């Protein structure tokens, strides 16, 4: 087995071998995630804490189910607002969790870098479930699993990512993982929604969506993150939909064996039309099921390498 995982913070921390190991375990977890097979007792007696300092019902549900299919005990710690987001409070919270005997923390936060900070402070594994604009590693892993269910390899695959790259932790994790797996990535975005350092990402950048569609194997549409936009990055939702949105006409430009993906939840009529979502090339619902399996594999890998937490004091 590849080097044990102690935390999962960012895709760039993973070796190719570790990624292959997680994806291989996730494939074996799928019948359990799909409920074709009963839950397994693997993590019985382990406590997983979902520490969600930013709202995310779907991701929390997915982690919750993943832990439960492995028979772990799950405690949910949700706090909205900013008080817990401040560095010091986060560490106080971590100390409390350790004292309570939690074996692993799944952290979702709006502060980029908070998971790294937490991992430095606690001995138990920290799993980053999305931190600000920085990283969302399990999303990229579940996307890779989905792509690999439809093609043998991602070596040389042409992956086109469309949308709000600037505010997207998904895009950052996705680009790193796709490059690790040998895919060519093209980013399509309005210039205002591209990060300033994009030239160092090792990707092709264009603003002509219609030109790249015929040469695309995987069309990955990002969510327009209205809640993250405090300034006007584009004139209006309607204009965004017209210029960057994927509709039935654009789907016709996509090859017959291409895939349409989206991290969810979709803003219908903005980045994707209902027609595009119903296209047979859309694998958006498969992504959701694969998310449970990938998160099961990550929990398994992190906890099978970790010493059991004992409650002291």
């Amino acid at each position, binding site marked *: *087995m590849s080097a*044990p995982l102690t935390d999962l913070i960012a895709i760039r921390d993973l070796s190719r071998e570790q990624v292959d*190991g997680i994806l*291989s*375990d996730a494939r*074996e*977890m799928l*019948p*359990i995630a799909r409920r074709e*097979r*009963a839950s*397994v*007792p*693997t*993590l019985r007696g382990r406590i997983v804490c979902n520490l969600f300092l930013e709202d995310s019902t779907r991701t929390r549900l997915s982690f919750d189910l993943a832990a439960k299919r*492995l028979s772990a005990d799950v405690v949910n710690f949700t706090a909205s607002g900013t008080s817990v987001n401040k560095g010091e409070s986060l560490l106080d919270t971590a100390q409390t969790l350790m004292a309570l005997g939690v074996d692993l923390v799944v952290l979702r936060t709006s502060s980029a870098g908070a998971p790294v900070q937490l991992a430095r402070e606690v001995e138990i594994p920290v799993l980053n479930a999305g931190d600000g604009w920085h990283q969302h590693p399990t999303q990229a892993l579940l996307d890779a699993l989905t792509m690999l269910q439809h093609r043998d390899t991602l070596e040389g695959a042409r992956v086109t990512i469309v949308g709000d790259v600037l505010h997207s932790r998904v895009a950052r994790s996705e680009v790193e993982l796709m490059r690790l797996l040998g895919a060519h990535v093209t980013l399509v975005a309005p210039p205002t929604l591209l990060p300033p350092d994009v030239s160092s990402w090792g990707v092709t950048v264009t603003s002509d969506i219609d030109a790249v569609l015929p040469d695309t194997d995987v069309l990955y549409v990002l969510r327009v993150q209205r809640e993250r936009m405090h300034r006007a990055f584009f004139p209006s939702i309607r204009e965004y939909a017209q210029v960057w949105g994927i509709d039935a006409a654009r789907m016709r430009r996509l090859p017959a064996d291409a895939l349409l993906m989206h991290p969810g939840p979709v803003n219908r009529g903005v980045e994707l039309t209902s027609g595009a979502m119903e296209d047979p090339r859309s694998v958006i619902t498969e992504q959701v099921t694969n998310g449970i399996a990938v998160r099961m*594999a990550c929990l*398994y*890998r992190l*906890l*099978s*390498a970790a*010493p*059991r937490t004992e409650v002291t004091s």
Partner: protein
Amino acid sequence: MLHVADGGRSWHGRPMRRLLDADDLARMIRRLAHEVLEGNGGSDGLVLLGVRTRGAPIARRLAAAIASIEGVDVPVGELDVTLYRDDLALRDPMPIGATDVPVDVEGRTVVLVDDVLYTGRTVRAALDATSALGRPDRIRLVCLVDRGHRELPIRADHVGKNIPTSADEQVIVRLTETDGVDEVVIGGER
């Protein structure tokens, strides 16, 4: 990796001894096939599930032997029991292998097949893994070698060979499919 074929040594330096060779194993598997058929009153309802890793090729060989005796192909599958183990915290992390069971076990006689029966913990995990697939009418256990030292109240229905061992010895079953050679060796110290 140990290298044993002709008087090799284990990693702690004690010589390994070959107890069974390819011919011994072939005869043993034919006998076990007869025993399984006799115990079941024929091949009706049988499904052989090899416990990964080495139980899987043994199960396939048993199925081939049953086919040559009865002229019937019984379903063969393999079971990975990693997720059902109770010693996750005690051992190095293990990748999860494939579980591939070609038929519904409901109402059938599942024959679990493993290479070495030792503490019984792998078999306990295999029983749970089988139950997760459905409710077979009965579960039987075949193992090539029973080396004793059980930690759980588990016994095999059909045993290739009982080999008394001390706890610090190793018994290694090697198969052409997984190791390039058919033999059972013993020796060394843990």
